[in-house]
């Protein structure tokens, strides 16, 4: 809509460079620098890492895979990665299932009080995990799920469902209701309408909700820290902080390699769906 250049005649090139390109480059530099630093550190041999006098710290003179090698073969990193992946997929699937149905009920079945259910689900998003983790920890222990990834799969939907439902309600709103009316007149049952008309049309919305849910559960930290104790059941963010940070001398190379590898799946996932991401983030805010 506003894609047309907003340049005006008096907007000289030099002025534009100073007010637009320079700050933009600074922003991008600051936002990307920690990733660059992470990558550089992960490939530096230890000798270079702690010797700034003879090496330019911004560059790797003799890149090494030692840190990544150590991470993959001397720690349970693959196992942590696998657990994280399972938890993320499990909770994403569960949340998508529950929130699709809930969003459909709130937005399309229009029963008495459906706005209040919508509002309640929205308010649930405002309850942060930091308030809930202590009572949830006692519940998890009582349910016998302590130290089990299943506890995470069951608990993550508490922050995923509100978000996904909210996003999907907005998406369902954009699908013309007339299509469903036509199907009703043709004698389809409501379940057939949901599975054969609404859901296929809502696939982009489902993808957006899915990638958000996946990213959020990959990033989750406090529940995973509180509910998981044994090393092999930890998720990547928790494991890096609790298993790799040992003693007084931090293995920065391995830590950065772990952070880099732990971020990569999300970044790759993100790069595939970047348009969905941006549009659903902005769409969710507009709702």
């Amino acid at each position: 809509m506003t894609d047309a250049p907003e340049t005006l005649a008096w907007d000289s090139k030099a002025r534009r460079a100073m007010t637009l390109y320079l700050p933009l480059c600074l922003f991008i530099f600051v936002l990307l620098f920690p990733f660059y630093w992470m990558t550089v550190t992960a490939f530096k041999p230890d000798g270079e890492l702690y010797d700034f006098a003879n090496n330019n710290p911004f560059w790797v003179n003799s890149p090494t895979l030692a840190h990544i090698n150590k991470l993959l073969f001397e720690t349970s990193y693959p196992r942590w990665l696998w657990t994280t992946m399972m938890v993320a997929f499990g909770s994403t699937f569960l949340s998508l299932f529950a929130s699709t149905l809930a969003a459909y009920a709130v937005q399309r079945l229009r029963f008495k009080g459906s706005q209040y259910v919508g509002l309640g689900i929205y308010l649930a998003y405002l309850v942060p995990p930091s308030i809930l983790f202590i009572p949830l920890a006692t519940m998890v222990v009582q349910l016998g799920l302590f130290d089990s990834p299943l506890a995470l799969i069951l608990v993550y939907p508490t922050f995923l469902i509100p978000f996904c439902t909210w996003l999907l309600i907005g998406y369902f709103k954009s699908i013309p209701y007339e299509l469903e009316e036509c199907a009703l007149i043709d004698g389809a049952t409501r379940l057939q309408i949901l599975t054969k008309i609404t859901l296929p049309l809502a696939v982009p919305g489902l993808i957006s909700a899915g990638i958000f849910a996946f990213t959020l559960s990959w990033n989750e930290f406090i529940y995973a820290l509180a509910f998981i104790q044994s090393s092999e059941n930890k998720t990547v963010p928790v494991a890096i902080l609790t298993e790799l940070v040992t003693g007084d001398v931090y293995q920065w190379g391995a830590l950065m390699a772990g952070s880099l590898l732990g971020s990569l799946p999300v970044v790759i996932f993100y790069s595939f769906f970047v348009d969905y991401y941006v549009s659903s983030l902005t769409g969710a805010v507009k709702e």
Partner: protein
Amino acid sequence: MSAAAEPHWVHARKEPTALARFFDNKAVLVIACLFPAVGLLTVFLTYPLGLGVFLAFTDTTIGRRGVWVGLENFQYLASDPIFWGAVFYSVFYTAVATVLKFALGLWLALLLNQHTPFKSLIRAIVLLPWITPTVLTAIAFWWIYDPQFSIISWVFVEALGWRTENFNFLGSEWPARFSLIAANVWRGIPFVAISLLAGLQTISPSLYEAALLDGATPWQRFRYITVPMLLPILAIVMTFSIIFTFTDFQLVYAITRGGPVNSTHILATLAFQRGIPGGQLGEGAAIAVAMIPFLVAATLFSYFALARRKWQQGEGND
């Protein structure tokens, strides 16, 4: 032709099975559709919320059911300087980080709204800090803040020669507090910028054209068109930002764990420290419950202070 098609008319529709007819009943379908979401949220969100408030009034520890102790936890906390330190830093952290995030985020949004080459690529890059796991980038910041091998120190001491000794980012009270805020702002800018960018794109260009014809300066156009039109979205984004900054846990836990000398504890990290490794579940729950009034106040503030403007402008109230 019509004669040949006629038999098909008879068999065209199968009678729906009893199960299908059962699910076609609207009331049944509504309940069935809402059950998974509402069930999960009730069991794992509403119930723990109540349980948390209940635990705050008991002396539960790990492995032992507590008894009702009334306000004892809160009385103890009221006389605990570490708790008040955490309250102070939570408010300070939230206030400073929110102001910086919104100032810089709005600036970035305005820049991104301009016509530049590689526009979509830049937008994609800008979101990276927000999508990568917080703890992992926090560890990167920890390394950037390293007392001996900090890259920032190297630039200032060796490359530029502006300082003679390294920065001690996390070693003492105030530098540690501001270092954490910087890391939080770094992570929060993308979300604010992209959300506000969405708001900027809904503003009709004709408003700016009309203002230009009337001779408005760039500042006047920003002040009297951009800001009022952005306020509704700003209110929502700010509510979220305040809530999630105030209850932040990951960043502080990963970088300082509340140190040095408890100066960077925020309520969530203090609740965790007392509740899980410390075993004092009741006390931890009381600290967590102490966050609720702040959250309600922040929500009401941003709702009434900012969203109010929307109906004053006479827009629809949906």
